[in-house]
Every structure is written in C-alpha cells, then in structure tokens.
C-alpha cells in the first residue's frame, strides 16, 4: 500500500515541476529500507518452508536448508498426495470456503446496505445488536449447545453459517455504502427502480472494490479457520484440511503424549511432510491474492478514508 503511494506521489510532483524536498527523499529511502526489511522477514520463513518441502530429510536435520532446496526430493509430495484423506479434507475446505464466503457476502451486504440508510428507523438498535457481539459472546459451551440443538452438528451448515457476519467487515462495508452519493440512488428511484433494483443495478456495480475486499477477507478467514470445524464436526471425512494439518504437526512434535508406538517412517518424514502440507494448503490463497489485491487496496482505502 504505502510503497505504491510513495512511488506515485513524486511522479505527479515531478510532472508539475515541483522537486521533492530533501526531507521527503530521506523519508523515501528510510521507508524503502524498513519495508524491504519487513518483506524479508515475512518472506523468509515462507521460502524456507518451500525449500524444506523440496529437500532431502538429511539436509534439513543438518540445518543446511535455508532458501534453496538441497538434495531435491519429491517423496513427501508423493506421500501426502497419495493420502486420500488429505484430498477429501482439501475438497471440504474448498467447498466450505466457497459456500461460506457466498453466504457471508450476501448477508453482510444486505445488512450493511440497510444500516447505511440514515432514514431507517431503529438503525441504532440494528447496529447495536451487531456491535454487541464484538464485545460479548455466549461462550463455547452455550454455542455448542445451540448448534447441536439446531441440528447443525456434523453438517456443512455448522461450518458455513455461524461466522457468516463479521462485524468488522460489516462496518467497513457500511462506511463504504454511506460514502456513495445519495443523488445516484435518488435518480434511480426517479427512474422507477425499487429498493432492490437500486441495490442490485446501481449500488453493487459501483461497489466492486469493496466486494472484492470482502471476498478476500472472508475467503482467507474461512480458508484458515479450523476451530469451528473442530468443534462441530466429529467425522474425519468432513474435516477441512486445516484440522488435518494441525493434527499432523501436533502429532509430529508431541513426543510426550504419543500414544501407542510411533511408526519409524512417519516420524522420519515428519519435517518435510509438515512443510509440504503447509505449502499445499497456502498455495490457492497465494495464487488468488495477486488478482484481488488491486481491488483490495482501493477497497480498504475507500471504506476507511471516507467513512
């Protein structure tokens, strides 16, 4: 975000014939150095994981794998990919994420749009209800009892419904809708559109940026979430891949509580298997991110600045 702004501004400044001040240049350099540092710090662990996933176990144990894979080895990829449960859970994650994001998006948009209308009676109460849940929750067991008595336990709904409205996202979206000029909607109304028509044909097409941002926010959080699934599901073939991954890593590191007897191959391959699973799990989000990021920047800015 900041990098982009930093490069844009001097360009326009130069065009106008104003030379950037000395102080500003120093700021730019310092900024660049700090941000490069941040990039390195964030990127290194990930690249290291990728390198580990492709390396031979011996080099990892010897601590010689940093950024470049050593002793190129794909056994772990083959091992993981041949585990049917991994793919079942992977498919679950995809299904859960797509469905949950869709539901979340529909609900959040409707809620936010309604809240953005100042003429709505009881708007304060409606907003209050949402904000209240930011600070107070029912707790684990009541939630569990609720989901169970609604009959959602061990169904896909237990995963995709409970977190459908994130209050933070709701408020960001509300701020965005509030920033849209009311004249547009009034004009649409004069032209004969009803409320739904205005939302679908006027407001939403103008809100691509915020919608893309919300898709990203929601999709990433659903993709990464494991706790809801862990709570409300008790069948292996319904778990998302995050639960699979978490169990795998815990199993490989928890020597103390390893029940029964561990298997030599499993432990042996553990270090690379962890890395492989992490890489495979992060890959889709990583692949999608660059395409949405464009909207993401403008979307968050719009909501934040004009709200």
């Amino acid at each position, binding site marked *: 975000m900041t990098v982009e702004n930093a490069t844009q501004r001097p360009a326009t400044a130069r065009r106008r014939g104003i030379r950037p001040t000395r102080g500003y240049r120093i700021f730019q350099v310092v900024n660049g150095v700090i941000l490069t540092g941040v990039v390195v710090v964030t990127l290194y662990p990930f690249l290291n994981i990728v390198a580990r996933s492709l390396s031979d176990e011996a080099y990892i*144990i010897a601590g010689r794998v940093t950024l470049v894979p050593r002793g190129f080895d794909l056994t772990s990829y083959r091992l993981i990919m041949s585990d049917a449960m991994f793919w079942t859970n992977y498919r679950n994650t995809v299904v859960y994420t797509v469905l949950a994001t869709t539901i979340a998006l529909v609900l959040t948009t409707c809620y936010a749009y309604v809240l953005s209308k100042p003429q709505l009676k009881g708007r304060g109460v409606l907003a209050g209800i949402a904000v209240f849940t930011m600070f107070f929750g029912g707790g684990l067991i009541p939630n569990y*009892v609720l989901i169970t008595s609604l009959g959602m336990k061990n169904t896909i709904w237990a995963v995709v419904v409970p977190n459908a409205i994130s209050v933070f996202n709701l408020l960001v979206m509300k701020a965005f809708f509030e920033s849209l000029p009311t004249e547009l909607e009034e004009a649409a109304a004069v032209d004969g559109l009803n409320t739904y028509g205005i939302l679908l044909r006027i407001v939403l097409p103008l809100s691509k940026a915020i919608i893309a941002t919300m898709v990203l926010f929601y999709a990433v959080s659903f993709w990464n979430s494991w706790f809801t699934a862990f709570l409300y599901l*008790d069948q292996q073939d319904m778990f998302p891949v995050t639960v699979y991954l978490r*169990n795998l890593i815990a*199993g490989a590191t*928890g020597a103390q509580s390893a029940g*029964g007897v*561990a*298997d030599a191959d499993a432990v*042996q391959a553990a270090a690379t298997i962890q890395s492989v699973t992490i890489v495979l799990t992060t890959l889709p989000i990583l692949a999608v991110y660059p395409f949405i990021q464009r909207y993401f920047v403008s979307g968050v800015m719009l909501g934040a600045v004009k709200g």
Partner: protein
Amino acid sequence: MFQQTWRRAAAAVVGLLTLTLVACSEEEPAKDLSGNRAGAMADYGVGDQFTATEPVSFSILYNNHTFYPLKEDWLLWSEITKRTNVKLEPVVVPASDYEQKRSLLIGAGDAPMIIPKTYHPQENAFVSSGAILPVSDYLDLMPHFKEKIEKWRMQPEIDTLRQSDGKFYVLPGMHEKPWHEYSLAMRADILDQLGLTVPKTWDDVYTVLKAMKARYPDTYPFSDRWHKPNPGGALLNFLGASYGTLAGWNYQHVTWVPNEKKFVYTGASEQYKQMLQFLNKLVAEKLMDPESFTQTDDAARQKLANGRSFVISANAQTLVNELRPDLAKTQPNAKLVKIPLPIGPAGEINPASRLENGVMISSKARESKNFVAMMQFIDWLYYSDAGQEFAKWGVEGTTYTKDAAGKRAPTPDVTIVGLNPTGSKHLQKDFGFANGVFAYGGKLDLVQSFFPPEEMEFQKVMNGRAPSPIVVAPPHPLTDEEREQASLWETPLKDHVTQNSLKFILGQRPFTEWDAYVGELKAKNSEQYLDMVNKAYERFQKSNG
C-alpha cells in the same frame, strides 16, 4: 399490562430455578441394575470371553492419531463386533486438541458413553458436575479389572485416584511392572574414544561430560530437548526422580516424604534445591548448553546430529526413530546408546508409575439399558489378558503368530516398529491394532513384546530397581471448595517455581537467594496449600484408613 407479563416471567424463572434445585438435590440413583442388563452376560467371570447376548452399540470418544488415522474398514472394528457382538461408534477428535473437545462435550452434556485416554487427574475437573460416573461403584461388573488389582497388588496405586467422596471416576490402565522410558542417550563412540565407561550415577555423568568438554572444548557436550510444556520437562522429571522429588513434566506441588509421613512443598524442598544445584553446576562449567531449556526439539536434534553435542534426553522411540537416523545421515560412525537411568541421592529406584491413562464413563451411560453389557465389554477389552493381547497384536494367524514359548511375531506381510520392516501392511495403519486408544499396559511380556533387545536390557536394569516411594503417595483428595481454592493457588505457584528453577539453573539467580525464593513461595500461599493437602490426607486416613 407490562407489569403483569413481567411478573409472570419472574414467576416462570423462579419456577425453573426451583426445578433445577430439586433436580440437583435428587438422591443418587439406587444401585438397581435390573433395567440395565439388556445384552449383558448372566455369569461373566475371569477368563470368559465377553459376547453380548444381543447386538449392542456404544459411542466412544476417539483420539485420532496422525500416525494411524482412523479407517472404517479396519480389522479392529469388525473383529470386535465378531467377538463381542458390540459395534463401536467413534466420535472422531483430532489428537491435537483432544482434551479441549472432551471438556466441551462433557460440559455440553453431549459426551459419548465411553471416554478413553484420560490422564489422572484430568478427571477432577468433571467430578463435581456429576457428568461422569463414579466407576468404583460398579467394579462388581468388572471381574478382570478386580482380578488384576488383586494379583498385581495395585490397591495403593488405585487409592491415589480417589476423590473426597472416597470414589474414583476413571478406570486406569495398569502395568504389571513399572515401565520407565526416559533417560540420557550418549555417544558411545565418544566414550570409547575417551576411554570411559557408561556412567552409573549422576556424578559419573558429570565426570563424563567434563572429559568430553576437555577433549572437545568448542562444544556443549549436553544439549537437551523437550522444553514443552515447561523448560527441561523430561530431564527435570527423571533427574528429579533420582533426587527424590517430582519435577519437570510431572511437577506436583506436594511430594510425599515416607519417613516423616507428611507432604512437603516440592518447589521449596531440599531435594529440589539439590537437583537445581546439580544442573547449575553443569551449566556454570559449560558442560550443558544453556539453550537446552528453551530450544526447539529440532534444534537440539541438529546439534546432536552435527556433533555439536553428545548427550541428549531420549526414550526408546526417539532413539530409534529420530536420533539414530539423524546421526546415520550426518555421521555414519556415531554410536548412540540410551544409558540406564543414572543413580542419584534417592538410590537405585525405578521412578515410573504403574498407572496409565484410563477410561471415563459418561453418567448418561448409566441409564442405558445396555449399561451392564458395556461395563463387561470394557472389562474384557481393556483388562482381560485376551482383550489386551487382541488390542495390541490383533488376530492370531492373521496379524501375528505365537511360537511354542509364547513369543509373538507379526505375520510375514505385517510390519510394526521395526519388526518385519519389509512387510507391506502396517499393524496400526492398516489394521487398527496397537492403537493408543485401546492398547496400553498389561502383563510385562505383552508390554515388552514390541521392544528391541537393547530396550529389553534397559528395562531389565530398571525393573531390578525398587519402585520409587514417592510415586505412590497416599490419597489426599480435596473437597470441591478446597479444589477451587487450590486451583487459584496452583497457577501462580507453578509459574514462580518454573521461572525460578530456570533462573537458578542458568545462574541468573544465586543459590544464596534460595531462602528469599522460598519466602516468595510462601507469599504465594505455598504453606496454606501444603496445610490443606496435609489436612486432606489426615481426613482421608480417618474416614477410610
């Protein structure tokens, strides 16, 4: 109008409250089992194979381990049904967060009937809610369990499980002999090179480390692992045992002093201090890596594999599965051995407990018409010799064979922990046997049946030693209020002990401040805590002694 509604609502709330109170104060259900015998065997006794007289099914909480994730087509499930007419319905929980889910399910009243893999005192948290069954009331339904207690003289151990009502709530796994796993692993080739023998006592360990340091001054000869959940977890645990105190993983706030017939506060005891002094000596003389208490396991393994350390804590599993393969890849000539637990001031002892994790029963199961059949089933599967052998080895002729001397071996295409490494099928992964949920404890020969010869040697030495007198402390169950108080005191006390143990070991705090440290513990109520435990002990002696 509004007033009226309000009053009605209030009345309803009061009514509800009264109902709850009445429900709570209801008498314990009478021990009449006549309505719960469906499927049960009329005369089920020691040596009998349990088979339900009609098909029954029981729900069971299943701890799903990554090394052998549950499969529905396991021979384990079908063979259980074939032999016992019981169908188990597992509620699958990833092993990573088993405890959390268990608490949730029990708290929400949604727990399965059978709840295995419970380590005492984890069950304490559920006792006062009444959600789990006081299993000690129903031992008459479990002939094998009773027989094992008698034959192996387990009563003192069993008594440690009792709550303040004199009952116990978990059916523990039981070992015929204590099984101690952890000790130091050492580079035998370095010992040979230095002309040293395997150290017998902790003082010998010190001498050996010193010799290693003299020869390789750039190394820390001892760099340890297992810093979770508390620093030096494994090391403090077995070193503490040698000093006669309960430290590390197994830190208990109070330690039993057999001679004085009372408890002392562990973290303030003389034995605990001596143990810390020993480690402090190692660290001060640079014989032990100060990072031992904070580094990850992988870091410690790397140091060992790269020859930057020669000694590490180990058990049979990590020795064979991790440490040796690591070394084989980096230093093919290295020879790593696990040495018998070095002897300390507490003498030649075996610090292992004979109790294992165990099974809780949901209170709701008591109302099931199959309750008696379920208890008989648990008795057979977990406590009969046949059931234990089945859970560990599977089906004779299919997954294993037995020679004339009774020695078991996997069938040619079955592999398990280094036995038959070329076998195409895995006893755990493909059949579901030797599964941590069902198979643990038992007779000595069964427990040791997977052990490689060197581990047998280790066990032989350890079993030649006397059981540690501090492991089986006399029962001192706290009442509900006391336990609540205790749990408020325990966390700050334990944190303080853990932090300061590390400071003393690393030399950040000199031992001249030991008295000040004990004073700080007192300020955190260590005395009151101790008092409460000693009183609970006397109370239990009076009413049950």
